[in-house]
Structure formats: structure tokens, C-alpha cells
């Protein structure tokens, strides 16, 4: 109850400070507009020149031909057919930058309504933005083909059933056929038959990249600014010590843990509000502005859970900064380095795969990296909670570490 009183008081103080409110809630939205607009354009079709795309067609069927035609016309790519071994050799020699592999069961699979995978393999030195643009084009054409195949497959299935049924059971009316087509259309939006997998061969094996650059901005900036709240928490503790009210709180009948909890609670609440504001704007506002907008993925509740864990980590980070810094300038310095500096290289504006490639294992010691990885996986790659357990565990690990160091170094005197 006393912790809650401290938290309510801190929130009152925070929301009376217009500058702080602008920095916490409005600045991220501005960043999102700028970066979604600027980076989103890199993934847009208009920017893609007529690139040559080597294709290995292991299928040779009707669906594969449709795909190639689609890529040549609607996609703005010039496809060139290669033998598999030849393409592989040329890719390894970096004579070609990337190749698309159409699997042998592509046509039969799509006809039978089974999920099939197209694989885009790129050389490690290939231009990442260009590869991303190519992937988006393939995904777009495959999406249309997927819808077409799904509807055709279901109509074919209904036709077969119709032909075999006795006359008195001729039940497939126009309404039913339309309803089935509509249902397949909806299904194709959430579970496309044709999935595009992108890989980069490397010494460690193959890594998957399925992120759009522009979409990263929403979750990345949310993580950056929620971790930025740690600075507010650290400054609130510093201010409390500076004006002497911290002494008054220490003299009150409450434990030190209750006092610290009271100082931490506003960080969690503010962080959650930031996520709500930023994601609401990212999902709905960007769409309204005509920009590329992310969704909350297939498991919005998992996104909520991850957001909560990120807020916990940010709060412990605040205590950590408050424990390390002895002056206001030190808070500013440490926060600039740890919150904003590491936040930037932790994936605020850069897709995770790029970070992995450029910074290697270094990024793994940055909490923001794990936060961005978790949100990207859930929101941009449509993965589930089970796929982000490592990221959640890493964030909780950082939370415990920061909190323990914070408590150890915290100067209650």
C-alpha cells in the first residue's frame, strides 16, 4: 500500500512534467513516422530495379511456371533458369548474389492444398537491402499464387465430390461455393500455402531472415524508449535524494524493499503505457498514414507478456543506473551510453539479422537486443511464445543481474 502511494506520487510528478511526457510518449511516435517512412521505402516495390534473379526450378510444373511469369511481369524481376549444381557453385564463388529454389513438389503441393516452401538463398556478401527487396517481391507474387491455388484446390475438391455424389445429394449450390472461396481467401491471409524462406549460407549453418526493414522501426523504437524510462527512474531516485525526501521516506515506517518497489512500480506502469501508445500508433496510425504497418502477430498475448518482461528489465536497469551514478551528470552520461547507445546498436532501427551479421556475438550482451529479437519474432515473423523462450529467459536474466547489482551498490545513506 505504501509502495503504491510512492508510485502514485511519482506518476503525479511525472505527468505534470510536459517535457518528460513528450519525450516518453510523443517522441517515439515521431521517430516511428520518420523511420517507417524512410526505411519502409527501402522495402517498397517501387524502389526495386529490374534485378536478375537466378532460379533453380526443380519442379517444372504449371505452378512453377506461373510463379516465374509473375516474377517477370508483376514482380519486376528478370528470372534466369539455372541447373541446381551450377547455381550452387556460382553462389559459392559469389558470381551470383542469390538464387531462388522452387522445390520439386511445388505444383503438386499447391494443387493439393499442402504448404510448400520457396527458398531464397543469398551469398553472405550480398546487398542486404536488395535481398530484402527481392524477398518481398517473391513473397508478394507467391501470396497471390497461394490464394489462387488454395481457391482452385478447394473448388477442385468440391468438384470431385460433386461428380461422385448421387443426384439427390447434389448439394454444392453457388452460395456454398462462394462461401468456401471466401473461407479459403481468409485462410490464405493467415496461413499462406507458399512460404518464402530466406537463408544465408555461413560457416555456422543457415540463418533465417524474414524481417522487413521498415517494420522494425515500431518494435525497435518501442524497446528503445521503454528502456529510456530507466533514465527517468534513476533521475527520480536521484531527485528524491537531492531534495532530501529520500531521508524522510527512510524515516517512515516502511521497509527499504517497499521503498524501492514504490520507486520501481511507476517505471513498469509507464513502460506498459508506452508500449500501448506506440503499438496502437504503429499498428493503426501507420496504416492510416499509408505507411507499412506491423501487426501484433499470431499471439498478441505473448506480445503482452514480452512487453511486461521488457518493462521489468527496464525497471531493474533504472535501479542499476541509480546505484552507479552519484551525480545528475553521471546519470545523463551512463544513460546516454547504456540506454540510448546500446539501444541503437541493440536493434532499434536495424533488423536483428543485420545486427547478427555485423556485430556478431557482441550484441548478445545487450538487453535491448533480446527485447528486439523477441518482439520481431512475435510481430514480424509470426512466431509463438515457445519460439521466444530464450529471449524471455535472457531478459529475465538481465533483470535479475541489474537488480542484484543495483541493490548491492545502492546507497541508502
Amino acid at each position, binding site marked *: *500500500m505504501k509502495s503504491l*502511494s510512492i508510485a502514485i*506520487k511519482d506518476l503525479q510528478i511525472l505527468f*505534470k512534467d510536459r517535457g518528460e511526457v513528450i519525450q516518453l510518449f510523443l517522441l517515439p511516435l515521431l521517430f516511428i513516422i520518420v523511420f517507417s517512412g524512410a526505411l519502409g521505402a527501402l522495402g517498397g516495390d517501387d524502389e526495386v530495379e529490374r534485378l536478375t534473379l537466378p532460379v533453380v526450378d526443380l519442379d517444372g510444373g504449371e505452378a512453377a511456371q506461373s510463379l516465374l511469369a509473375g516474377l517477370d511481369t508483376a514482380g519486376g524481376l528478370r528470372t534466369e533458369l539455372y541447373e541446381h549444381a551450377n547455381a550452387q557453385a556460382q553462389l559459392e564463388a559469389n558470381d551470383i548474389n542469390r538464387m531462388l529454389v522452387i522445390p520439386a513438389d511445388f505444383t503438386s503441393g499447391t494443387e493439393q492444398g499442402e504448404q510448400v516452401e520457396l527458398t531464397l538463398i543469398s551469398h553472405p556478401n550480398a546487398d542486404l537491402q536488395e535481398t530484402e527487396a527481392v524477398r518481398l517481391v517473391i513473397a508478394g507474387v507467391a501470396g497471390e499464387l497461394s490464394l489462387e491455388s488454395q481457391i482452385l484446390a478447394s473448388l477442385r475438391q468440391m468438384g470431385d465430390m460433386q461428380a461422385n455424389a448421387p443426384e439427390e445429394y447434389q448439394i454444392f449450390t453457388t452460395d456454398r461455393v462462394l462461401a468456401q472461396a471466401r473461407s479459403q481467401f481468409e485462410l490464405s491471409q493467415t496461413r499462406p500455402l507458399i512460404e518464402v524462406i530466406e537463408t544465408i549460407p555461413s560457416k555456422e549453418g543457415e540463418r533465417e531472415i524474414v524481417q522487413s526493414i521498415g517494420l522494425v522501426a515500431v518494435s525497435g523504437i518501442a524497446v528503445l524508449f521503454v528502456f529510456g524510462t530507466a533514465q527517468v527512474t534513476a533521475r527520480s531516485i536521484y531527485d528524491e535524494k537531492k*531534495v*532530501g525526501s529520500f*531521508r524522510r521516506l527512510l*524515516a*517512515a*515506517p516502511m521497509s527499504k524493499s517497499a521503498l524501492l518497489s514504490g520507486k520501481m512500480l511507476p517505471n513498469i506502469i509507464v513502460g506498459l503505457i508506452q508500449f500501448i501508445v506506440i503499438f496502437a500508433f504503429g499498428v493503426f496510425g501507420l496504416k492510416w498514414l499509408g505507411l507499412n504497418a506491423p501487426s501484433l502477430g499470431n499471439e498478441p498475448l505473448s506480445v503482452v507478456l514480452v512487453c511486461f518482461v521488457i518493462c521489468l528489465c527496464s525497471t531493474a536497469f533504472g535501479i542499476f543506473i541509480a546505484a552507479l551514478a552519484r551525480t545528475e551528470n553521471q546519470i545523463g552520461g551512463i544513460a546516454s551510453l547504456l540506454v540510448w547507445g546500446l539501444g541503437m546498436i541493440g536493434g532499434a532501427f536495424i533488423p536483428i539479422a543485420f545486427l547478427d551479421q555485423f556485430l556478431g556475438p557482441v550484441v548478445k550482451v545487450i538487453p535491448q537486443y533480446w527485447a528486439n529479437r523477441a518482439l520481431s519474432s512475435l510481430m514480424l515473423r509470426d512466431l509463438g511464445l515457445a519460439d521466444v523462450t530464450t529471449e524471455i529467459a535472457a531478459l529475465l536474466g538481465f533483470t535479475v543481474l541489474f537488480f542484484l547489482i543495483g541493490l548491492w551498490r545502492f546507497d541508502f545513506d
Partner: protein
Amino acid sequence: MPAILEVENLTKKYGDFEAVKGISFSVEEGEVFGLLGPNGAGKTQTISMLTGVIPPTSGSARIAGHDIKSDMNEVKKINGLVPQDLALYPTLSARANLNFFGRIYGLGGNELKERVEDVLRIVALTDRADQKIDEYSGGMKRRVNIAAGLVHQPQLLFLDEPTVGVDPQSRNHIFESVQRLNRERGMSVVYTSHYMEEVELLCNRVAIIDEGKIIAMDTVKNLIGILGGGMIYIGLEEVDDALLEQLTGLGGVKEAMLVPPPVAPPLAEGEDPEKETEPVTSNPIVKIVAENSQQAVVNVISFLNDQDRPLTSLEILEPNLESVFLHLTGKKLRE
């Protein structure tokens, strides 16, 4: 009267530095007790230990029968602390501040509302209670600072230099508030200050504290009585033991002694220790503790005239806590 506060051999150390050196004192219920000493004497450290802000290094204290080490949570309910700093939230109103401090002492609902109104009345700020602290004058802020320490109705109130930086009008108001709380509500008060006038005015008993030690403790009257009729400082060209004896034997003089010459300041880095320096004072100073200052002054001057010993300086100090402190420590309270 039973003691509400009993302190025994309380010590606070920071590494090798001993901020509080084993002090002992007690405060009776309903008493206003003063801790008088210069800045850095250890007053705030002592209060901080007694209110649970910092733990003592050694020693013990009991407040209303509760030990400050084993039963601090109960002690905190009994205590009220008015820190030296303006420990308030400047962007919140006085009422919001008081509500908050009431809530962290477990108050709520109508009880909290009544207590807040009550303390606002005590510090005469009811009319401006909804104004932000930022918009208050220094004196008004000090009054809210005191109100915040009173909102939970403590039995023992610690006031740590409550009048620093306050205009005379607000200072008088603070004095009146403390006297009224003590007189009408029987609140016991520990009042620290380096202003001897405040302590003389408010406190029943005073402990004079310097460099972490209590060097004298008694009622104000008895402390001033140490000096009897005050002190006289005279500067002479030459002083010897025989002269001091003769001065001590004069009527109205209680004691005459040579004031030790001031310690030379430490050498600056690179300064030659052999280099000759100008003495801080050229003439020796004799301190005379008077039983009757008027009689002593007349007798001392006549005697020195008869002896043909010219005076180089003369200072007469009235008997008060300031001169008591000077007498006991050789330092001024506000050096």
C-alpha cells in the same frame, strides 16, 4: 517525568572518520531539548541514527521504550522528522505533499484529511494549501516542511535546523508553532541548531556538541552560569604567569588565562617550511572569566594602568550560549 529518549554511547564511523563519538543524553517527555553546535559537529548524524535513516556503528538508544536497533519500525511510528533540507516535492501542492506523507505513515480516508487540515492550520497555510510548493517563499516552504513531519502526530519530533534560510517573520512563526505543539499537545522535541538565540528561546535543556562529542549539557541557565558574569578579552604587549595570578586576584574576576596562539595554517604545496611568516596576531590575548563583568572591567583596567601596561585590544562578551561555546571550544558557533 519519564524519558522518551535515552541515548547511550552512540557512535557513527565512516571508515577511520568518527562523525559521532559515543554521545549519551536523554530527553524527558514533554521536553524541548536542544542540540547546539557548529556545522559538521555531528547533530544531523545523531538525528539520522535516531530516526532510522542510517544505522549506528555502536551504542544504543531507546525511544518510548523501543530499541532503535531491534524495534525500529515501532520507533519510526513514534518519531517525526523535519530534515534540514526542504524534503518536499516542488511540483506538487502543499496538500498533495502532506497527503502523501500521511499515507506513507498508514493514514487514509477522513483521518488523513483531518490531520492534513490540522497541520495546515498549525503552520498557517490553509489558504494556500493547493498552491505548488515551487510557488511558495522560502519561509512558507519551511513551514510545509515542518507540517510534513507532524501529519502523523508524532510523540517525539526531531527538528533539524528548521530555520536555515528563513525570513524573520517565518522564523517567529516556526518558533510559535514549536512552542504551541510542546505546550498544548505535550509533544517532545529535539531541536538542532547552530543559532544560540533559537536554542536559548525554545529549549529547556541543551547539549553543546562539537566534533562529534557532547562537551556540555544542562539547562540554558546553568550553562550560561558557567561564565558567571561573562568574558573579557584583553590584548597586552607582554604576559607572564605572575600577571595572570595578579589579574585572577582582582575583584569581580573569576579566572584569568592566556589564550593559546592560533595554529599556523598548513603550508601551501611547494612552500618553503623555513620561510619566515608574519604572526597571525602580534600581541598575546588574556581571557578573563568574570563573576561580575562591570566590576571586573573597572578593576582590570585600573590595575593595568597602575602597572603601566598599555592595552592593545579589549572585548567584552555577554554571558550567553555563544560565549559559553567559545569558552569551551575556543571556536565561534558560526565560524
